[in-house]
């Protein structure tokens, strides 16, 4: 299994290298093959992680990491296929030389970005996780600016400045955690998880508390927690669509993974009450902000970006409940959100290409012009609203159930209320424009997106449906183990 892990971290690099040197379809073929191979490798590692950890050198994968690896590698495969169709339409507007250069840069960037997001959850230690998240920022900031328009440059500037400041704060958090650990373990240790967790009970409480708050603010910048979310809608809206899907479905989750690791140590040192309280405050404010912004959005991609902020708020609140049912729901939510937001962004990207606008007011009669894309988009939005029978319904239900059974009645009630507000926003905005009929009975020419852009979205929708109706045994086992690992530090049993 260690071979699988090493291969998982080599394949995207190789694919990136190939895609940066060849032209035409070969680059896409390499990326698609890499995406499918990574998904296969994660599936192969899945069952063996059900019973322990995979460790080799500075790499270590346990059930919690596995959940994030699955989300990222699934999106990698889906986005790789989609990009083949997406770039064909984009390159039609450029000369063949500029097109080749654009495609090489784009595919290299996407592969490196995915590599960084697979690296961060696979490494052993808070320091290396920080490095992984840092690399994701470096690569994705350049990718956001790749279209070289004024709006893209503005979004990339805000992103790099705000996210880098956040990472500076996260580095301070890591420094304080290192200091706390050094009091027990001596100066020469490397912040590895087993060591830190084994001695978590003896760590001095004040530096650990400080480190956790700084980590929530610092990494929270990349997660999109209020009030440090401001780069997020800009970057998601201005980035090329395949990147938007990866940012929203995967990057936010990977940054949340970093917070979870700090949560584990903090809960073991000072108890889950403190750590949960901090997350609850940030989660509720984040969810409130997102729900209100969802009510009146005019830009299709910003609309989806705020939906991502909403779901990150739900994750934070779910962890703050701290009991195994809620944490199981959180872990499942990471996966279903990746599928849901991937599907929504990818079909939205096809709509934006078809209508040549992101303004919702100008998108009418989508069902007549692009029946497949419009249907999958509306289904993905229903799924993101947590409607049954889709997977997000199941995960949010578990989070709320966990909240009530852990006697966080008030917080769980607030969660239900705010999710309902967000539902109203999502449903109203969608029915107002995408699902609305054509203006004055003129549907315009029928121009469905090409199959490369429709099939990946269908895959996302099928996964959402599958996870809503039936949770495969091995998947349930790993999610259960992940929830157990997260809750054990807080003194809860496996339930």
């Amino acid at each position: 299994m260690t071979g699988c892990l090493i291969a998982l971290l080599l394949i995207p690099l190789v694919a990136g290298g190939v895609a940066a040197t060849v032209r035409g379809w070969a680059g896409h073929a390499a990326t698609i093959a890499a995406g499918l191979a990574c998904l296969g490798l994660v599936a192969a590692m899945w069952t063996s992680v059900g019973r322990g950890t995979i460790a080799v050198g500075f790499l270590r994968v346990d059930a919690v990491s596995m959940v994030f690896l699955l989300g990222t590698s699934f999106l990698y495969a889906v986005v790789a296929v989609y990009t083949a169709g997406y770039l064909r339409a984009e390159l039609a507007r450029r000369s063949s030389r500029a097109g080749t250069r654009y495609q090489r840069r784009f595919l290299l960037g996407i592969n490196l970005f995915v590599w960084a997001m697979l690296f961060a959850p696979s490494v052993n230690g808070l320091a290396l996780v920080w490095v992984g998240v840092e690399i994701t920022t470096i690569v994705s900031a350049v990718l956001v600016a790749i279209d070289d328009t004024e709006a893209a440059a503005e979004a990339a500037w805000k992103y790099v400045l705000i996210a880098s400041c956040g990472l500076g704060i996260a580095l301070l958090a890591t420094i304080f955690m290192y200091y706390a650990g050094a009091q027990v373990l001596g100066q020469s240790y490397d912040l590895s998880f087993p060591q830190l967790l084994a001695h978590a009970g003896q760590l001095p409480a004040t530096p650990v508390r400080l480190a956790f708050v700084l980590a929530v603010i610092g990494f929270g910048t990349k997660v999109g927690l209020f009030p440090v979310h401001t780069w997020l809608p800009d970057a998601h809206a201005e980035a090329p669509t395949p990147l938007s899907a990866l940012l929203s479905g995967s990057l936010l989750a990977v940054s949340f993974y970093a917070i979870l690791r700090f949560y584990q140590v903090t809960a073991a040192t000072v108890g889950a009450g403190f750590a949960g309280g901090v997350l609850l405050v940030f989660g509720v404010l984040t969810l409130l902000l997102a729900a209100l912004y969802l009510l009146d959005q005019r830009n299709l991609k910003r609309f989806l970006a705020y939906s991502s902020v909403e779901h990150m708020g739900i994750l934070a609140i779910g962890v703050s409940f701290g009991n195994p049912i809620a944490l199981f729901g959180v872990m499942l939510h990471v996966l279903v959100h990746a599928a849901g937001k991937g599907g929504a962004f990818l079909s939205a990207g096809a709509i934006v290409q078809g209508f040549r606008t992101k303004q919702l007011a100008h998108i009418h009669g989508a069902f007549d012009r692009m029946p497949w894309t419009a249907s999958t988009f509306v289904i993905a939005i229903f799924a993101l609203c947590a409607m049954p029978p889709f997977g997000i319904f199941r995960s949010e239900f578990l989070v709320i159930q966990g909240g009530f059974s852990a006697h966080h009645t008030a917080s769980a009630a607030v969660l239900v209320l705010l999710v309902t507000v967000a539902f109203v926003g999502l449903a109203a905005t969608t029915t107002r424009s995408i699902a609305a009929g054509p203006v004055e009975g003129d549907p315009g020419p029928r121009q469905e997106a090409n199959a490369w852009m429709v099939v990946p979205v269908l895959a996302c929708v099928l996964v959402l449906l599958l996870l809503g109706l039936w949770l495969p045994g091995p998947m349930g086992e790993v999610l259960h183990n992940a929830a157990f690992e997260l809750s054990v530090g807080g003194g809860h049993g496996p339930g």
Partner: protein
Amino acid sequence: MHATGTTGVVMAPSVFEGTASTVAMIVLLLEFLMLRSALLRAQIRLYAAQSAVVSILAAVIAHGRSLPELYVLAVLSFALKAVLVPWVISRMMRDSATEIAGSGALGVASEVIVSIGVATFGFFAVGALHIHSTVLPSAALSLAVAVVLVSFVLMIVRRDVISQSIGFFSLENGVSLASLVVAAGMPLILEVAFLFDLLVAVVVFGILMRTHHRHVSSLSTADLTSLRG
């Protein structure tokens, strides 16, 4: 600047502690100078000086604690932060022919007063946490946090991209300072990764200058308002 021993008796600081605290103080003072300087070129020079001072501290700690890998960091951070980044930024600035920093949201005097307040808060807040150890110059840690906070003030009140990038770059200096005094043994790769972040910020900064400057010939972030809501 006295170090307090474990017994609570005030003792004379060791050479290492004295150096660390002095350097931290110089870094904070340079941060304040950046805040008040109206010329962008002067800001860049101050940043180069601040980076050089932090690099020297890395070398001092490498010697004092016998951590040879910190020499690598010292050399790398000097080459990047004191030479390369200031040079690239001033070249880009020469092309845009802007000299004076855009007026801030506050007057210079108010900015300085706000920053003094913020820095004092940071200094005493960290002091009140009682993060002590026999090897740790705790005054330097408080000063590093003060530097970070003042750099946030710089980024918030100034409205031009150069001041904002310089603010972020000096934030990085503050964090380096904290990591050097608190966690000198911490893996070097963190510091190096953060240096890369600086380089990417410079690249994106270059793209922004190019695309933005084509349309409006100013560096003011007051024009960066097309994305909102």
